[in-house]
């Protein structure tokens, strides 16, 4: 089933003191094609869970519509929407065994008993919990509870599967394992799936498409590669992946990073000098050995070994800049703190320094630099 979220807004009613209330979702729009796996990614409190609950019908939006297969479902109560929902803290029925939890959605739909038993067994196999059917939630581990919750949501064959921070409460190892399982499961059942996460790695790893949310607004919709390599806003650039934020001034085709000058091409330069921020990822900074090639001169402050890579703190005209280098490629170990090196920014983005505004954006391409 395809889902369209169209101009949805939701303000939570104020507690007595604050009159304004809290605008949790602000004119959010995006689409999920049938069978896709989409991540709603944002920091905590960004409204992503509220959007998910609105799709499920657990919250009523103040304005805007949710469409399923092209039909507006706003008036349809939760229990008639045919969604499967996995809650962050599992929300398993404490007084019921794993088997009874999974069977619940089938029992309320009045499936015949034999069918229910068959389906429950199927799901126990799917989530690899055969033998645990008689356990109560309190007798299961976190990962097992989450799998029961997933099986319970899938049992009535929902048109849409919604997962709210499904792995948030689990430790890192179980989390990675379950994430891989979810991906595999999605390949198998092909239910349209939306999951909420604050973990960008998780989103990149699992989702076909990512919707980045900040303060209730949709910042960008795109594939993992799109949001990572071509962030639409300053927020997206800084939230996803690591990034150096360097304050600079633009004058014509030159950016000034302190006393250093960086020629910029393809940047729709404003007529007068302007404050901008230059965002560059640590892995997009490269040390150049060629003495004659253009580059920005800086000093190495610190070198840290990170297992698969070296991480170095550079001093670029007084600004701290972090870069990473592959172990294979890097000659870093031969360098020492205090060494002077020249670097090239392979990829970067420029944004107007005004908060949240992203009108100006440099083309991301390889550029040469002179001091």
């Amino acid at each position, binding site marked *: 089933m395809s889902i369209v979220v169209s101009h949805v807004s939701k303000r939570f009613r104020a507690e007595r003191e604050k009159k304004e209330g809290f605008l949790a979702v602000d004119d959010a729009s995006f689409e999920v094609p049938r069978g896709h796996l989409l991540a709603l990614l944002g920091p905590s409190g960004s409204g992503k869970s509220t959007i998910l609950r609105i799709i499920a019908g657990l919250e009523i939006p103040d304005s805007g519509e949710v469409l399923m297969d092209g039909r507006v479902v706003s008036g349809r109560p939760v*229990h008639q929407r045919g969604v*499967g929902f996995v809650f962050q803290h599992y929300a398993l029925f404490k007084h019921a065994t794993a088997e009874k939890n999974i069977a619940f959605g089938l029992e*309320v739909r009045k499936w015949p008993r034999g069918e229910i038993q068959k389906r429950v067994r199927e799901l126990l196999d799917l989530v690899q919990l055969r033998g645990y059917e008689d356990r109560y939630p309190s007798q299961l581990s976190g990962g097992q509870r989450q799998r029961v919750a997933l099986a*319970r949501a899938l*049992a*009535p064959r929902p048109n849409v599967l919604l997962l709210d921070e499904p792995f948030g409460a689990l430790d890192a190892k179980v989390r990675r394992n379950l994430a891989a399982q979810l991906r595999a499961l999605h390949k198998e059942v092909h239910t349209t799936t939306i999951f909420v996460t604050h973990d960008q790695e998780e989103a990149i790893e699992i989702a076909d498409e990512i919707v980045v949310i900040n303060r209730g607004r949709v910042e960008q919709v795109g594939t993992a590669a799109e949001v990572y390599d071509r962030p639409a806003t300053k927020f997206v650039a800084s939230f996803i992946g690591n990034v150096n934020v360097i304050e600079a001034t633009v004058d014509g085709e030159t950016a000034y990073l302190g006393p250093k000058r960086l020629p910029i091409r393809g940047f729709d330069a404003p007529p007068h000098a302007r404050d901008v921020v230059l965002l560059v990822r640590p892995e997009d900074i490269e040390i150049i050995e060629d003495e004659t090639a253009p580059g920005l001169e800086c000093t190495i402050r610190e070198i840290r070994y990170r297992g698969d890579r070296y991480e170095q703190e550079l001093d670029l005209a007084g600004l701290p800049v972090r870069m990473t280098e592959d172990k294979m490629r890097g000659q870093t170990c031969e360098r020492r703190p205090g060494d002077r090196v020249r670097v090239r920014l392979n990829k970067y983005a420029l944004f107007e320094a005004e908060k949240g505004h992203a009108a100006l954006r440099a083309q991301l391409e390889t550029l040469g630099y002179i001091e």
Partner: protein
Amino acid sequence: MRENQVSDGGSAAANPKPPAGRSRMRRALGPENLMIGAVVVWFSVLVLFPLGAMVRGVFDSGFADSIRSLGSPVALHAFWLTLGITVVAVIINTFFGVIVALVLARQRFVGKLLFNGVLDLPFALSPVVAGFMFIVLFGPNGWLGRWFEAGGIRIIFALPGMVLATIFITLPFVTREVVPVLQEAGTEQEDAARTLGADGWQTFRRITVPSIRWGLGYGVCLTASRALGEFGAVLIVSGSVIGKTQTATSYIHQEFTDFHYAGAFAASLVLAVASFLMLMTMEVIRRRVTARME
């Protein structure tokens, strides 16, 4: 030894050497044990001794006489009446108590704080005052009573008034027990049930009720115990007509004032045992059922 003398209970416990006689005594007289002792003594004086005295009273004043007086038509009528009133009060208060609890735990409305305070009033108010209130309201010349009287319905000095007074007295118990349980259970399980296709009633019956059942059970037991033992309010609205509107407690009172202690002791014991059994049974069932779940 010298070390032990200066050390307090805590560090003596941490000492790997077995404690010598003197420090053991110190520990026996430690604050925890003193508190346990105080609780036992306090409880004995207030609860166990009176109960023991009541049991002894039954035997001292003649066991056979006690049994005989319990079997008398007047006593039987009083007990049946009390039982009937209790059952009705429990059913009505359970029904409305759960609704009130749901509203208090889940809804926000203007005046909730005030409502929350007023809810305990029936419990805080003297039962005699409560009874008097009902007389003023429902008596033959009362504001509402005169209309009922005109319609030929008698409320005061009759069964409806007694039921009404009992319901009033036991009003907050179910709600007060259920609200915290509801708050602790939260709404996530109910949300989950709804996304799984359960409608409002299915969600309530299959998810909400099981999650509040122990609080509800305890509330019902308290309501029933209180209803069984209610005296003041019911006495005032009933007029305590022997064989007609006399309840178990007012029967006890009457036997006592008639110097017929055997009957008073026996009836008292029956009421006490009934309340005790109810609370114990409830606790035993709870432990047995939740042993695996929690």
